[in-house]
């Protein structure tokens, strides 16, 4: 029996996830052994852990891309970038959580531990190059988020949200697993690269089997990224979950799921049937953009509005994914062994599309964390049962009462709407330009039009904050320095990355080339 031998090349890439896990275990143990009344140290520990993991992932980005742990995972700039984004989201989410939980007297180590476990799952999910690894990490991240959704378990809303998310999430995971099993049945391997090599022949021999597997995997991912028509859970779960958890869900979970989707479909899509994949992603993108934006318009509940807006943003991201498979960039169907051999001439376009996607994920992470952070900072525990905790009226006259939070919220909303000089504008520009370059003019026009509709409901909140007098009886909780710090950092990132997008573009260019190596 030969024992596998692993070296530093194998351990360094998974070290960020190991640090996150160790931090989570430390938090669990400290929670039961240190019974002190103030638990702010836990949030700080979670932040330190995610900063350490993020820094390590950042340094990993400079390593050459290589297979890790016998090809079950890969390290490339693509996965390192995602890990950094995830760690950023987790750190900011922990800071937002600190103030939120303090107000509810619910600060516990388990909250931060679950956040870190989820982050470890996300980091490894971005690296997974094999279906079982991918599924296990998807479950690590999902189970942690199910528990976090119902973290404040008193009251009907969190339990409804937690239960819905769990049932539907488990169903989607089962779909994905079923699809992966069918693809395994067709090709005899769970490794994505080997599967891509064998899929062409398998698709000829058993077209129905491969097609079923493909669509089931696609449906599982579409659920995780909340693409229309798999978005139904999003508003209820986002609304019912504690607001910092919603922030992390819309940022980190979405980013990791998107990256896994892109990796799986970049391997398998071109071999299966590029045309079908292209048509499906275009249709998903168009439906998601339009439906998400239209449903967000009538919402008076700001948290629910942001949930629908997150659906719409998944649509913009999907148009970037569709650009990856646009006819011009797709390789000939036969003889696909390694992606580089056949994508060749169009790798520049594909690189641009991947670059746009990753930048969008970064932009959306800081922006949505910030916007949900402000929503969380304004909601009072006493109002949650009344159902108006997130009403637009709560934002009336915010500019007088809380000038800083109002200004930060305005910045985040402008970024969500895609208005310069914020990062949201640059992100949309990159994604839509990739779509236009790939020949998807119609999709890009639809995206711009629907995001113009989005500006209406984003700016409505700004109007309430700056041009309406405060409504009586809408108290806001005390300010917490952790929340203010996280909001300031997010706002700074939103404006800074909007003005200087070049600061990350070198990295993104390398990340965009991963599959061309």
């Amino acid at each position, binding site marked *: *029996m030969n024992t596998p031998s*692993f070296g530093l090349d194998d351990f360094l890439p998974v070290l960020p996830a190991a640090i996150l896990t160790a931090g989570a275990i430390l938090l669990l143990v400290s929670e039961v052994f240190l019974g002190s009344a103030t638990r702010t140290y836990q949030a700080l520990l979670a932040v330190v852990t995610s900063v350490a993991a993020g820094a390590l992932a950042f340094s990993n980005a400079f390593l050459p891309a290589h297979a890790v742990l016998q090809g079950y995972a890969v390290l490339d700039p693509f996965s390192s970038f995602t890990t950094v984004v995830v760690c950023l989201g987790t750190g900011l989410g922990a800071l937002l959580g600190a103030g939120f939980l303090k107000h509810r007297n619910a600060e516990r180590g388990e909250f931060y531990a679950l956040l870190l476990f989820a982050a470890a799952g996300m980091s490894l999910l971005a690296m997974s190059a094999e279906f079982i690894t991918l599924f296990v990490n998807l479950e690590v991240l999902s189970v942690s988020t199910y528990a976090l959704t119902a973290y404040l378990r008193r009251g009907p809303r969190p339990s409804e949200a937690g239960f819905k998310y769990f049932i539907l999430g488990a169903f989607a995971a089962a779909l994905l697993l079923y699809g992966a099993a069918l693809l395994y049945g067709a090709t005899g391997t769970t490794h994505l690269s080997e599967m891509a090599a064998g899929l062409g022949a398998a698709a000829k021999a058993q077209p129905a*089997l491969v097609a079923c597997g493909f669509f089931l995997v696609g449906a599982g991912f579409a659920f995780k990224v909340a693409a229309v028509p798999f978005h139904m859970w999003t508003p209820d779960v986002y609304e019912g979950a504690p607001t910092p958890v919603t922030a992390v869900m819309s940022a980190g979970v979405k980013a990791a799921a998107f990256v896994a989707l892109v990796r799986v479909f970049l391997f398998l899509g071109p071999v299966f049937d590029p045309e079908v994949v292209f048509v499906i992603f275009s249709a998903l993108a168009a439906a998601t953009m339009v439906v998400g934006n239209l449903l967000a318009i009538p919402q008076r509940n700001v948290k629910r509005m942001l949930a629908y807006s997150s659906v719409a943003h998944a649509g913009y991201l999907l148009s970037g994914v569709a650009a990856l498979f646009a006819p011009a960039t797709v390789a000939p169907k036969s003889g696909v062994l390694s992606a580089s051999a056949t994508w060749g001439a169009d790798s520049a376009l594909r690189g641009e599309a991947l670059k746009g996607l990753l930048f969008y994920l970064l932009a959306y992470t800081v922006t949505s964390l910030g916007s949900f952070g402000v929503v969380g900072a304004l909601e009072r525990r006493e109002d949650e049962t009344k159902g108006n905790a997130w009403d637009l009226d709560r934002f009336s006259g915010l500019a007088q009462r809380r000038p800083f939070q109002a200004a930060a919220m305005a910045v985040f909303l402008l970024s969500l709407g895609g208005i310069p000089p914020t990062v949201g504008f640059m992100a949309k520009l990159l994604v839509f330009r990739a779509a236009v370059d790939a020949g998807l003019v119609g999709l890009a026009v639809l995206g711009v039009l629907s995001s113009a509709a989005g500006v209406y409901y984003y700016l409505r909140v700004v109007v309430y904050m700056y041009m309406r007098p405060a409504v009586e009886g809408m108290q806001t909780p005390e300010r917490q320095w952790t929340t203010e710090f996280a909001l300031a950092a997010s706002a700074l990132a939103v404006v800074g990355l909007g003005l200087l997008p070049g600061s990350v573009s070198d990295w993104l260019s390398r990340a965009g080339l991963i599959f061309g190596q």
Partner: protein
Amino acid sequence: MESPLVPYLPILAVLLLAGLMAMAIPALTTRLGPRSVNPIKSESFECGNPTLGTARQRFAVKFYVVALLFIVFDVEAVFLYPWAVNFRALGWFGYGTMLMFASTLVMGLVYIWKKGALEWES
């Protein structure tokens, strides 16, 4: 090319047969069997005490906690057996890996212990 699923054809046949039987037998009994309904027969149990209250009792959450913890440590045992069988072949590498795995679980045990999840009477 012969489909790799062909060897599984008997399983499909058994599945279909089982489904058919499951439908046919109750249908046949209701159609053919003699029926005599009387009050004693319609009671839940013909012997023993008459039933009290509803069967939909609420259980204490500690049952679920214990069941969950059982599963966690059961899975650990599942991992330990093949490792123990191959202990020599895996060498120090296997030892280190298993040590890491087990220590993670021990931390979990410490956590639930201190948290009081193992206290039945409280």
